[in-house]
């Protein structure tokens, strides 16, 4: 079935070794030439017009520069294609060489292709610079185009220069994106023998790519993304779960802190006010107590003074009373004594008689010897001594010194000597002696001691009283007698003295008696006096006693009073002490307040539990309250520190999800809340994990879905290529085969997720958890590894294409490579059908513009197959061109290539042979 629209003819002028080549394209062609005579280069020329993009030009073994020189040797080398289009009728697409650079230029115009129009009047071909002018001359409005613009035109791209989009659009694709793939397949279609399995797969994927949305799945990223939160949450849950005790403690302390804060906040103004009032209170109270104290002390002093006076008075009265008593006693005593004496005159009489007797005695004594007994004794002893001396003299009277001296000395001499030894001598006055002291001294020195040496006389004077008077015995006897007489007299006198003593004693007694009587008289007078004053005295005693009793009573009272006073004073002192103690304590706390930190200034801005205690602070409770307050302040600081440490501990044990709370208090609140809702958190976590599994598999489902879509598309594609029988093949299809390990892994994950979605026995933290499943983990790891090796998983990674061929009566076989699948001819056919089907799929089916496909080595196909291929190609919208050394009678045209004498090839319209079935000719 040929189309009304499509390629009409290909013309090469002065190109590719052809002087001129005209090739019909509106029906199947058998191009006939021996090998290596430029069949392929003829068909390759179309690439310049249809592929356009230099990058995609493919000349097999020849590189593109060589090809350019080959196709455009001069500026009059042309490749021309006439196409009939539904919108604009016949159009010519052309490519002309630019000369020595071997570059080329695109042009196009509406109208049929007449080779003559390219020939100048001189028969030469028009050169590129004159081309537009030449064509204009023939009424053709041609323009040059850049390759990009030309490509846009041919493939129906953007409208430029006011042209309608379809003016030169040869290929209209269902999807603009396919242009690239289309061109590539088309390239291959022009050289189908090169189509490889890999290319088939690539192109099929490209063709179906619009049905497969851009789905590159980076599975690892998807997995990590989906589970990142779950894993994080799970960590947090576990941390909180493990630290429940600590969090409970945290909660308790936080409550305590809030309460303490509330208390401090409520009490602080009370305390401030209380302290103010306390100061006043203390001063007033102190003064008042001081005043009272002084009063009491004064009272006490007064009391003491009075007491002292009373005591003095008491002692006076006692003395007085004692004196009175003594008098009374004296009175009684004297009354006793003078009981018998009634009258004073009696006593006067006794006194008078005693006085008289005494006076008599005194007179007696005055007449007696006045010498005293002592003097008499003295004289007696002297007389006795003299008597003893005299007696001694009497003994020595016959032989003594004096007598001796008298014998030897004259009387005068003796007299001088005797006088010289007079006892009075040493009392001589100065006129009576002469003293030669030197001489005397010399003399005395020469004398031994106690010896008195006179010339010729040495005297012992040891026992001597000086001076001696020699007496006569008679004289001595006389003297002794005298002495004895005096002694007797003296002894008599002594006896008389003794009598005198007793007289004197008598006189003393008498005087004593007088005195006694005088005293008695005196005492009697006293008695009389005492008796007379008795009534007064008794009365006086009574008064004194009464006064004493009064004093006693007063003192007793005073003592009680004093005790009371002392008690009162003590009480005051106690009060004062208590006041001072309280003040000291309050003052101490005030000086050292626990709320001096900054934080206490904005404490009310911090969270706290309002305090519901008293709003009044009586002063007597101030100290206690202040102590409590102080304790609260310190406790608050301790709590702050403890809570801080606990929070840090919780952080380090992994509970970090609330770290970014606006403040630590909020964080603690959230931690505590979290701990209370752990059970709910576990549920939420499980839900999250489920949804993560679902999420992560969503992308896999997409991928799997795309694979399914691709398989469906391939099914359609196979239907397309199986419409005609290829060679002896009963079955020919291109089958996507799963990369089973990947697809199975994906399916496993998807199944798991379905299980999860339906909530079937999925426990997050037990052994069957999705996160712990070994098989699941292997699947996950596989997908991650493959994904990272391929920078994400694509549908293309999930399958490979196999070519399934089945001959009659044989089992279907699969081949990875189409080239190895069957005989040459079969392979050629397979490739062709595949390629055409791909192009067909891309084209806009509503616009039937017949294109060309080319098959080299066509002799490998038998006639039946050739016919089948021609039909198939036609159905896909292609005219088939076979190339072979000998003609194929199945084609509509047989076109031989002729070699000219100048070595150039030549194909002329005149050599076209048109083959028609006999029936048709007959008809």
């Amino acid at each position, binding site marked *: 079935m040929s189309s009304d629209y499509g390629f009409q003819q290909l013309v090469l002028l002065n190109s590719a070794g052809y002087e001129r080549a005209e090739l019909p394209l509106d029906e199947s062609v058998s191009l006939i030439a021996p090998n290596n005579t430029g069949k392929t280069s003829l068909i390759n020329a179309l690439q310049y017009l249809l592929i356009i993009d230099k990058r995609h030009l493919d000349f097999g073994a020849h590189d593109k520069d060589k090809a350019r020189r080959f196709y455009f040797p001069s500026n009059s080398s042309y490749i021309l294609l006439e196409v009939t289009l539904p919108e604009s009728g016949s159009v010519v697409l052309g490519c002309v060489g630019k000369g020595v650079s071997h570059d080329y230029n695109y042009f196009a115009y509406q109208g049929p292709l007449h080779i003559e129009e390219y020939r100048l009047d001189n028969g030469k071909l028009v050169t590129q610079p004159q081309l537009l002018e030449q064509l204009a001359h023939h009424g053709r409005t041609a323009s040059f185009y850049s390759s990009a613009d030309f490509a846009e035109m041919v493939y129906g791209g953007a409208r430029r220069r006011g042209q309608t989009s379809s003016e030169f659009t040869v290929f209209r694709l269902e999807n603009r994106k396919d242009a690239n793939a289309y061109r590539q397949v088309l390239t291959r279609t022009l050289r189908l023998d090169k189509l490889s399995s890999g290319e088939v797969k690539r192109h099929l994927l490209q063709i179906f790519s619009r049905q497969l949305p851009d789905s590159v799945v980076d599975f690892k990223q998807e997995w990590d993304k989906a589970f990142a939160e779950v894993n994080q949450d799970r960590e947090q849950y576990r941390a909180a779960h493990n630290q429940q005790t600590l969090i409970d403690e945290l909660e308790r302390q936080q409550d305590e802190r809030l309460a303490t804060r509330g208390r401090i906040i409520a009490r602080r103004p009370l305390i401030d006010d209380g302290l103010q009032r306390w100061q006043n209170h203390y001063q007033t109270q102190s003064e008042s107590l001081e005043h009272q104290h002084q009063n009491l002390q004064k009272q006490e002093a007064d009391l003491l003074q009075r007491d002292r006076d009373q005591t003095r008075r008491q002692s006076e009265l006692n003395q007085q009373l004692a004196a009175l008593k003594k008098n009374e006693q004296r009175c009684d005593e004297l009354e006793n004594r003078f009981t018998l004496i009634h009258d004073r005159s009696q006593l006067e009489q006794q006194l008078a008689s005693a006085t008289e007797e005494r006076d008599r005695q005194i007179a007696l004594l005055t007449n007696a010897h006045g010498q005293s007994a002592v003097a008499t004794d003295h004289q007696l002893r002297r007389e006795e001594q003299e008597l003893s001396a005299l007696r001694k003299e009497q003994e020595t009277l016959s032989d003594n010194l004096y007598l001796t001296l008298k014998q030897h000395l004259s009387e005068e001499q003796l007299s001088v000597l005797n006088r010289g030894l007079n006892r009075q001598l040493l009392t001589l006055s100065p006129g009576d002696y002469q003293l030669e002291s030197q001489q005397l001294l010399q003399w005395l020195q020469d004398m031994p001691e106690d010896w008195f040496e006179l010339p010729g006389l040495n005297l012992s004077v040891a026992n001597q009283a000086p001076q001696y008077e020699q007496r006569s015995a008679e004289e001595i006897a006389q003297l002794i007698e005298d002495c004895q007489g005096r002694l007797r007299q003296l002894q008599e006198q002594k006896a008389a003295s003794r009598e005198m003593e007793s007289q004197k004693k008598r006189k003393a007694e008498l005087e004593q008696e007088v005195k006694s009587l005088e005293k008695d008289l005196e005492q009697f007078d006293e008695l009389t006096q005492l008796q007379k004053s008795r009534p007064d005295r008794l009365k006086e005693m009574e008064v004194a006693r009464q006064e004493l009793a009064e004093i006693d009573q007063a003192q007793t009272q005073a003592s009680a009073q004093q005790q009371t006073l002392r008690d009162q004073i003590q009480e005051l002192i106690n009060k004062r002490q208590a006041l001072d103690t309280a003040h000291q304590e309050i003052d101490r706390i005030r000086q050292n307040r626990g709320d001096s930190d900054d934080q206490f200034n904005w404490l009310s801005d911090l969270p706290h539990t309002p305090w519901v205690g008293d709003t009044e602070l009586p002063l007597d409770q101030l100290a206690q309250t202040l102590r409590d307050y102080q304790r609260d302040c310190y406790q608050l600081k301790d709590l702050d520190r403890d809570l801080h440490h606990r929070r840090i501990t919780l952080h380090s044990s992994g509970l970090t999800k609330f770290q970014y709370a606006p403040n630590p208090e909020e964080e603690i609140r959230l931690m505590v809340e979290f701990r209370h809702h752990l059970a709910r958190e576990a549920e939420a976590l499980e839900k999250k994990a489920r949804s993560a599994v679902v999420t992560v598999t969503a992308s896999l489902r997409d991928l799997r879905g795309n694979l399914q879509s691709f398989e469906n598309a391939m099914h359609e594609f196979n239907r397309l290529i199986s419409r005609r029988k290829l060679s002896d093949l009963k079955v020919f299809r291109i089958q996507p085969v799963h990369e089973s*390990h990947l697809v199975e892994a994906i399916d496993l994950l998807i199944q798991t997720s379905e299980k999860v979605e339906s909530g079937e026995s999925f426990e997050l933290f037990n052994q069957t958890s999705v996160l712990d499943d070994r098989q699941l983990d292997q699947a996950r790891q596989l997908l991650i590894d493959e994904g990272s090796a*391929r920078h994400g998983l694509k549908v293309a990674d999930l399958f*490979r294409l196999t070519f399934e061929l089945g001959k009659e009566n044989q089992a279907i076989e699969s081949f990875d490579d189409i080239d190895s699948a069957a005989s040459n001819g079969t392979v050629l056919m397979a490739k062709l059908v595949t390629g055409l089907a791909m192009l067909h799929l891309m084209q806009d089916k509503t616009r039937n513009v017949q294109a060309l496909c080319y098959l080299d080595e066509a002799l490998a196909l038998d006639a039946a197959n050739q016919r089948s291929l021609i039909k198939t190609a036609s159905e896909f919208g292609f005219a088939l061109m076979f190339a072979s050394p000998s003609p194929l009678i199945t084609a509509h045209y047989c076109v031989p290539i002729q070699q000219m004498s100048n070595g150039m090839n030549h194909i002329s319209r005149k050599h076209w042979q048109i083959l028609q079935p006999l029936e048709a000719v007959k008809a």
Partner: protein
Amino acid sequence: MSNTSQFQQIANNLPNLALLFRWFNRGRHLNRIAEPVLWEELERNLDDYTAIFSALGSDLRLDGRGFAWFHQDDGSSNTNKATRQLALLFMVIFDTQADAGIPLMKFEHWRIDQTLLTTVFEQHQDLLEAEELDLSGLVSLMRTAENFGFARYDGGAWQLLPAVCRYLDHYEELASQVDQDEDVSWAGDQDDEDNSL
């Protein structure tokens, strides 16, 4: 000049050329699931690799089921011994599993651990002893398989890799030959398949 520089250019685009060459040259198989990165590179540059290896005198083969190897028509006697022993190993394993009613095509999912190897050994003791293999010999044979890229050791057990398909294909072929020998109508129709490893 151009050939050398062209080769150099191609080689520069193949960072793992040396690694892959050593890999294959040791007779080791490359499995897609075991070495996804190497596999991806090989697949992406298959033409270049094939060309270079071919120029180096090696025939790179790539099986669509996900494994590649250097094909050798006739291996050294050492390789042959290893090949024969591996064939025996896989055969006894597959036989054991088949007896247990386990589908053979899912061999990649089997866990070949000590327990399984013991069972395998007990069931094929005569055969293995004829080849002078005891249980520890069987284990060391698994290591050989690992070295040739037929298995990998993971999580305390071996896992067979797709390259084992080469043996499996071979067994099936042998089995079908036996069938054909028995089926007169198909006799003698089997000739041009490549049976060597």
